[in-house]
């Protein structure tokens, strides 16, 4: 009797391990990976309309990819998408334990598949959704559930003794210690996945957060996110930071607030070889730079290579509104109407059809208009990427923002003679901070600069302090590279720091994600 009481008490204090695992994975999939998955959703496409999904016909893993893409649409709200992901992973874990009849310590094996998946997803980083099949993100867990459920039902049909355990109750058999250890393991697996993404792919969540903020047109938030992670130096972060600054008009004052000495993002293109992720942000940068037709070009290439994605369709819609191509804008909006949970986007942009006045009033579009070209040119005649090459060659702009962008491209690429030459139109004026810092730095080489910009004298003290402090490290390129990081916290945002210590890693590898000539043709 006493033994029975004891057993009852033990049962009562047992933790429902599956529920613990479900909760931990939900929090992971929602709060930790929410932005990443939201961006994955934007890089994906699913519609119940058959014609729109024809691009999936005959692809490997077609059925599971289609189902996975459908489930991924729930990530419009990360809590909901995360919930689905957690349900799938914990269900697969629970079924795994049931099918293998795991008992006692062996029960920990049930976490292996889901744990491996969590860590793998964290390790993939951008490759989770960039130039790859997005349907597998949710599709693989779904497949696992379907397979295990089938096996479980077969077992249940032939075995009257092997009943489905109640996941709300603790472990199947075993001691209280085993139950506690399993609960810890359930949480530890999620912690391990968090560790993998934090230590191995630290830029992924930051970039995704900025992209999510961009979707919400929270430009200040985007810039803040980048600055909070200023020491992370990856091209996608820098690209989205530049976009945020262009949209807030802060590009000429805060561009160098983040470290720009790009580390390898470990991103793979279609052909499975490394890439510097240029294609990841190209169309967004084109649009922010006012190069609407170039944005159409790259969005179209993106759709050609990946099939339709929400990102590309949204970019194309915006571009069509900016170019006044109302009918094709309407076409894209009609397509978006067939995508679940995209009503907000359609509701926002549909009223702009055939209403150039409303297009002009839109905050984002009005910024884009400021730097749209005045004259036609050809992308082919410009240095790549075009959003830099165009600004580097700019001769005439629509606004002072165009001039700032052009000057910033030259100081970013450290092409100083061109920078000095391009400053002539603003001689005598007080330039924005970053441009003033660059001019002052160049005045040591070009004394005439000081005559043209007498106001620069005020800043000479800071430059002298900087030069004195960095003198010990100026000996060689290697020495500068070695000490760049330790100097960054003190001198971040200061152009002379960037000039001497920024962007030192010349990326020698070519962008291999730009699919080679074998995939090019006249279409």
């Amino acid at each position, binding site marked *: 009797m006493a033994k029975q009481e004891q057993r009852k008490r033990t049962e009562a204090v047992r933790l429902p391990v599956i529920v613990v695992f479900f909760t931990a994975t939900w929090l992971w999939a929602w709060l930790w990976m929410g932005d990443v998955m939201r961006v994955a959703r934007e890089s994906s496409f699913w519609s119940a*309309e058959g*014609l*729109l999904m024809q*691009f999936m*016909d*005959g*692809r*490997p893993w077609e059925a599971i990819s289609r189902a996975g893409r459908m489930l991924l649409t729930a990530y419009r709200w990360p809590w909901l998408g995360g919930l689905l992901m957690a349900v799938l992973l914990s269900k697969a874990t629970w079924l795994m334990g049931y099918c293998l009849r795991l008992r006692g310590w062996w029960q920990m094996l049930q976490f292996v598949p889901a744990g491996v998946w969590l860590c793998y997803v964290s390790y993939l980083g951008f490759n989770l959704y960039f130039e790859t099949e997005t349907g597998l993100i949710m599709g693989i867990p779904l497949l696992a559930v379907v397979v295990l459920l089938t096996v479980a039902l077969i077992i249940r049909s032939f075995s009257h003794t092997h009943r489905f355990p109640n996941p709300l109750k603790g472990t199947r058999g075993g001691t209280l210690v085993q139950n506690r250890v399993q609960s810890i393991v359930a949480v530890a697996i999620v912690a391990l996945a968090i560790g993998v993404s934090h230590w191995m792919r630290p830029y992924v969540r930051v970039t995704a957060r900025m992209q999510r903020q961009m979707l919400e047109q929270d430009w200040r938030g985007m810039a803040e996110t980048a600055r909070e992670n200023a020491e992370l130096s990856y091209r996608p972060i820098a690209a989205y930071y530049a976009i945020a600054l262009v949209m807030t008009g802060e590009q000429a004052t805060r561009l160098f607030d983040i470290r720009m000495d790009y580390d390898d993002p470990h991103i793979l293109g*279609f*052909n499975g070889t490394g890439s510097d992720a240029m294609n990841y942000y190209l169309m967004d940068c084109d649009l922010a730079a006012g*190069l609407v*037709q*170039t944005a*159409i*070009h790259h969005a*179209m*290439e993106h*759709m*050609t*290579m990946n*099939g*339709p994605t929400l990102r590309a369709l949204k970019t194309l819609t915006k571009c069509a509104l900016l170019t006044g*191509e109302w*009918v*094709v804008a*309407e*076409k894209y909006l*009609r*397509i978006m109407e*067939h995508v679940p949970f995209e009503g907000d986007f359609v509701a926002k942009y549909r009223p702009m059809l055939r209403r150039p006045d409303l297009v002009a009033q839109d905050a984002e579009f009005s910024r884009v208009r400021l730097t*749209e*070209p*005045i*004259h*036609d*040119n*050809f*992308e*082919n*005649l410009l240095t790549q990427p*075009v959003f830099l090459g*165009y600004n580097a060659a700019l001769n005439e702009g629509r606004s002072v923002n165009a001039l700032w962008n052009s000057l910033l491209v030259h100081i970013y690429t450290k092409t100083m003679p061109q920078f000095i030459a391009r400053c002539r139109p603003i001689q005598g004026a007080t330039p924005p901070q970053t441009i003033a810092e660059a001019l002052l730095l160049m005045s040591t080489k070009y004394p005439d600069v000081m005559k043209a910009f007498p106001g620069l004298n005020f800043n000479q003290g800071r430059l002298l302090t900087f030069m004195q402090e960095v003198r010990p490290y100026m000996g060689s390129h290697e020495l500068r590279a070695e000490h760049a990081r330790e100097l960054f916290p003190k001198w971040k945002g200061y152009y002379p720091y960037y000039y001497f210590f920024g962007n030192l890693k010349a990326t020698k590898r070519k962008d291999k994600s730009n*699919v080679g000539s*074998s*995939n*090019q*043709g*006249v*279409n």
Partner: protein
Amino acid sequence: MGRTIVIATLAAVLVSCGKHKYVVPTDFAQIDSIAPIYPDYTDIVVPPNIAPLNFALPVTGATEMAVLFEGEKEGKLVAGAGKELKVDIDSAEWHRLLEQNRGAGIRVSIFACMPQGWVRFQPHSLEVAEEDIDPYLSYRLIEPGYELYRQVGLYQRNLTNFDERPIYENNRAYSDEHNHCVNCHNYQNYSTRQMLFHVRANHGGTIIVRNGKAEKVQIKGDSILTAGVYPSWHPKKNLIAFSTNKTGQAFHLYHNEKIEVLDEASDLLLYNADTHEVSRVLGDTTKFETFPCWSPDGLWLYYCTANEPQSAETLNLPDSMAEMRRVLLYNKFHYDIRRLPYNEQTGLFGPSEMVVDCSSRERSASFPRVSPDGRYLLFAEGDYGQFHIWHKSSDLFVKDLQTDSIYPLTEANSDDVDSYHTWSSNGRWIVFSSRRMDGNYTRPFITYFDRQGHAHKAFCLPQHDPDHNILLLKSYNVPELTRDAVRISERELRQCIYETEGTMATYHALKRVTH
């Protein structure tokens, strides 16, 4: 017998359950305007064998629609739609009505159920021509633009219904090893017995199908510029004229056109499919010759040609920057249409003669196609260049080769791109590509070309779901009409493409080409 009756009864019940019977309202208010149907099928001439012209009625507030087709000679057809306002016309009834009214008109009355009651729009008409259109249209489906391609295919559509089947599709999943493009499909004399298309990149070559057998050929070599590109099959002989083009693209930054396709160099070739010999027909390095086209009697080879433009601003650019020079002068390329007489006995070409002089008018002609009766030369004319599918100024023109008069097909043309045209085998129909629907995605349009040499209002290729044109994210490329369906299977073509290296064409100099 009993079982047959049961099945027939069940089928009848199912059919009657499946098809909603629409009734034409008797009580309605009359509206002065014509119904704004999509696609626009109002007041057009249609082939008697065309698939049902299903359409949508995008009218806000309408909850139901009824359509009454009344034949001028005989017959009536009632169709309709629920709240989705998309008419799905019964195919059998449609074809019966068209057949009954061959050479006559059909009056179309559209009724919409509005909140205040039924309304009737002004009726419009369909004129049913006497002549059929060739039943098969083949085309390539590809995203509209730019440099890259991924999933592309050649497809064949039965114009009498909505069946579309792939002739050949490339690999669906990305693969460095297998990625390839297919383009430039062409047929001899509107028959699929002899056809060809190119495969580019991996497994590349020209696939020539003769009497149901596919063969891969490599038409390239030191003596010719590049591989064969734009083809034209001699109507009687196993000779194929190709242009060979070194082609590039330039992308506009701020222009109402998006892309300019430019040739760095181009020549004309003649390939003998029997002997695998290739010869250069024209190879003047100061000229750009392209888009060959045989006349239906096989005695003339039409082609486009332009001189390299010169300008003071680019004159000083070194030869190494020749490509840049051409890009900068893209709008100074003006192509004329010329032709070479061909002697079938000797296999020699005679001196070239001008057919359409566009360059003197600072205009540019492209893509000549001669009508099956040999009387009309159909071509696309635009402001400049030769790849008119990207030129908004491009319109269809014809030259009456009997009277030498040249005129635009105004009734068929639009404000947007109209190009890449093909005649039907009876010469009464023209199918062409147009970007008129949205300015970006090309769709095939059909126009009737009457005996007086005039085109009529063009209409879009009918689709089962009218929204197909909106939802499809690919362009229709190079529409070609044929009398019969492609016989060779996709599997056989794939086998030829993947498993053979291809026969190398041998270069054979033509004895003489006189300009």
